[in-house]
């Protein structure tokens, strides 16, 4: 299999690209560049953190991610895209946070099975549904799903970010999508 050989079915405009020159200015200690880089990347990292660790802890985890990113900026060699490096740091930090919190699958199903619910109960907001569903699937699968669906990374970029073989990305995404569908339908999601 090779990437990009067919027309994608899902819309995939790709993530915002960070200018390597901006990263270089940050590495040389330019405060204005640091602010520009932070403000360019923080909202997306915060959104990823919100979905990975939940809204309550996302801000703290995001701060930690950027403190680590800026303190290790000199270690970024430019071999991969900056976003890949930053997202690797973000995902690792979020997964470590979850391990420490032992929050894997910690959110109980609080809604009844779909068969017992009427349409009015299905009016859960997309965010509420996703928060509940994400909390109940394997965090590694949650991460891979979000990097694809929300951050719109290619399989190659996902493999670099998560440091996994590129050939396993598709099968992991299959598992992630199946788990999410299963949880969402138990929550009464009926698209």
């Amino acid at each position, binding site marked *: 299999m090779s990437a990009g050989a067919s027309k994608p079915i899902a819309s995939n405009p790709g993530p915002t690209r960070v200018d390597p020159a901006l990263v270089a200015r940050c590495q040389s200690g330019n405060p204005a560049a640091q602010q520009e880089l932070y403000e360019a990347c923080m909202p997306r990292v915060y*959104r990823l953190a919100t979905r990975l660790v939940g809204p309550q802890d996302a801000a703290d985890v995001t701060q930690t991610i950027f403190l680590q990113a800026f303190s290790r900026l000199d270690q970024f060699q430019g071999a991969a895209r900056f976003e890949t490096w930053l997202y690797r740091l973000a995902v690792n930090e979020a997964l470590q946070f979850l391990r420490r919190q032992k929050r894997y699958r910690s959110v109980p199903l609080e809604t009844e099975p779909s068969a017992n619910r009427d349409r009015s109960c299905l009016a859960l907001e997309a965010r509420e549904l996703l928060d509940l569903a994400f909390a109940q699937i394997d965090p590694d699968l949650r991460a891979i799903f979000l990097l694809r669906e929300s951050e719109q990374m290619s*399989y190659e970029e996902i493999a670099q970010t998560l440091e996994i073989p590129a050939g396993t*990305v*598709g099968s992991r*995404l299959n598992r992630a999508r199946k788990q999410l569908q299963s949880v969402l339908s138990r929550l009464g999601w009926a*698209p």
Partner: protein
Amino acid sequence: MTIDCHEVERLLSSYYDGELDRPSVATVEHHLAVCRECRSELRRFEDLSSLVREDDRQGLVPPPQLDWNTFARQLRESKSYPAVAPANRRSGLLDPVAVSPRWRPAIIAASFLLAVGLSAWWSLSGPRATPGETNLEAFVRQFIRDPETAQMRLLAQYRGEPIRTTAVARHLGLPIPTRPSAGEPFRLVSLHKLRMPCCDCVEAVCTRNDGTKIAVFGHNCAARVRLGNGKSQQVRCDGKICQLIELPESRFAAKWQVGNVRLLVVGARNKAEIERLVEWLRPDLPSSHS
């Protein structure tokens, strides 16, 4: 070439995401044209993407805590001192408790090279900035709720280095009990040197008998440490005058002085516990008694 549902299922994400090569795309599409079940599965992928896009469209506003100015202040505090101490100060990395013996020679060599470089830099960079106050408000709030994360962030922010109890005695003239014994109210679980804006501080994390944690800081300077806006009062604990500060969730911080060392405890449950801490941390070195 024809393939069955099981094989299509295996390829479906790659197909959906546009990551399949042309021959495989043709094979999958041939199957989809005749298999309602696999078409349904593909539609469920699309529905899932729509749900995520809908959430993305709603937007997510980062909280003020993540404003650049707030973050930059933390960043400045974490970078206010050089990453490695000058040559005449022993690095915590060399401490045997922190480093496996087989790495020690390499670390000693690397530290020597770093020290030579930093000494040159140090002599050119002029005097250190005037020590400022340290803001532990965020740490305190988080430590009460989530001590592990608070501790990890503190170490990242102030470049924490593990140190041995003997180093604490050297640094602060204050021995911290390490061996649990019958009736001991706390047990030491970690000991770090932190490069804070005010001074190099020693921080100990201790557990109670029920496993919950408290943090103890020892400073060698008189700079102010901010803990928030909780009510404050002076009380006498085990014969010591302590400043008791109310924290969220019915917890307390307490400050007291032993010789020249200012001790700060974060996360105490009540005055009785602070009294036990004052007693526990009472130095037995005559020179460090207040």
